[in-house]
């Protein structure tokens, strides 16, 4: 878990990895799986790219949390 780098998505203000928000954003996810599942790891949704990305990802649009 220590592989998450500085300035990666998990620390970006555009990234949302909160389980309930992820389930709300992906209808059907909680029917046969879960955002609390280990397989999801720390993935979340990037509001800038509108992509579902790994927490350890990086991009040029990184913005620090306020």
């Amino acid at each position, binding site marked *: 878990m220590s592989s998450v780098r500085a300035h990666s998505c998990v620390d970006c203000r555009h990234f949302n990895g909160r389980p309930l928000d992820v389930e709300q954003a992906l209808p059907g996810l909680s029917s046969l799986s879960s955002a609390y599942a280990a397989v999801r*790891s720390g993935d979340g*949704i990037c509001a800038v790219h509108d*992509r579902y990305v790994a927490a*350890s990802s990086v991009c040029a649009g990184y913005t620090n949390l306020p």
Partner: protein
Amino acid sequence: MAEIAEHAHARLSIRPSAWRELIRKEDWWAIWIGLRLVAVAIALFANGGSIKWIAVAPQKWSHLANAAAQLQTHGAQYAALCVLWAASLGIGAAALGIKLSRFLPAFLALYVVAGAIYFLGLWDQAAHYNLEPPLVALGLGLLISNTVGAPRWLEPGLRVEFYIKTGIVLLGAGLPLTLIAWAGPVAIVQAAIVSLVTFGVIYFSAVRLGLDRRLAATLGTGGAVCGVSGAIAIGGAVGAKKEQVSVAISLVVVWAIVMIFVLPLVARSLHLSTGVAGAWIGTSEFADAAGLAAAQTYGGYAGNVPGIAGNADAAVSAFTLMKVIGRDVWIGVWAFVLSLIATTRWERTGVQNKPEAGEIWRRFPKFVLGFLVASAVITIVSKGYDYAAYKRVVLPGLVAPLQALRTWAFTFAFLSIGLTTKFREFASVGARPFYAFTIGVVVNVLLGFVLSTQVFSEFWNRLGQ
């Protein structure tokens, strides 16, 4: 969703930590809850007692008066069991971030309805009218959620995966480790053949139809490895668009629900044995919860439907070996490999992932460890008993009560599947993703059928005996 991320200034994610995972992931909570129940059961058994008083389950009944009498006689036990489940699952839900004050009323309602369905399934005419508990729970839930809609206050209690994983850990207590060691390699070989072929068919069909490779991979693992869990794991690993993940989820859920009804029906018409049918369902269903609903339904036919050989538990056992041991445990490997390919071979998206072998462990479905530990512990406890003594002492005093708790957990899950599946909220999938996925479904079902009923049939039949 963009609004969700943008409007808030609070932190919307938590930095991953190996220790935090132990209390923030439901896989681990399924282990803590399941193994605690197993440990208490063993401790009581070792001291001449049993958890069977609290692990109460309905018995066969023929008239409503019989069922009412059962309820009256065992009312205190059902109330105690409700408290046990509410406390165990409630602590886990609270640790995951679900408010206890919202979870408990929802769970109480779920428990009452699940109990009614469990009772209905024990009616001596239930099989005649196809009133198998998994199908009734699923059908009732689907009917409510897609007509009047499940009330909002019920939503915090509808945690399909939390219940199904807890049930799978308890299922380990009924499967000797020796059986897993004997059947596991065959399950892995059969599952590997089907997974690779199905993934290849969906992926290349999708690419041929002009779909994006990230969508193709997300669809492929959704169909070939572990359903919705596979789709979200790979969607995240390759950085798929949000709508692509939604499309994959919609297709997996719809086909998985269709298969819950179709696979047992076809297997029943062909009089497949419970072991063979369980293996086929394990090869060709897409999600654990959906597959267990189908397998438990089929197990219920044993002894009730003429011409179906094998014992009732064989369907669930064969399914679990095939799906959990054969397919689920490899999701981390799929994620790592596809992440590597996406990063090095596919077009750039603006978001860069860094594939690492650690991904294999991070995405590993940890509840499988609980399943294996439960199996190992019960195998050790049973070691000193011969078969007759096992049937006379260990089964009723230790294993059967844990199996009853497992059935409760599964019933919570089956009811939750229906109540959380709202077809009108699903993403519009489009024709090309539908065709690509459906081609894969057809190949998956046919190949799974041939492998289960022809190539490895003798093996799966023996499991049922």
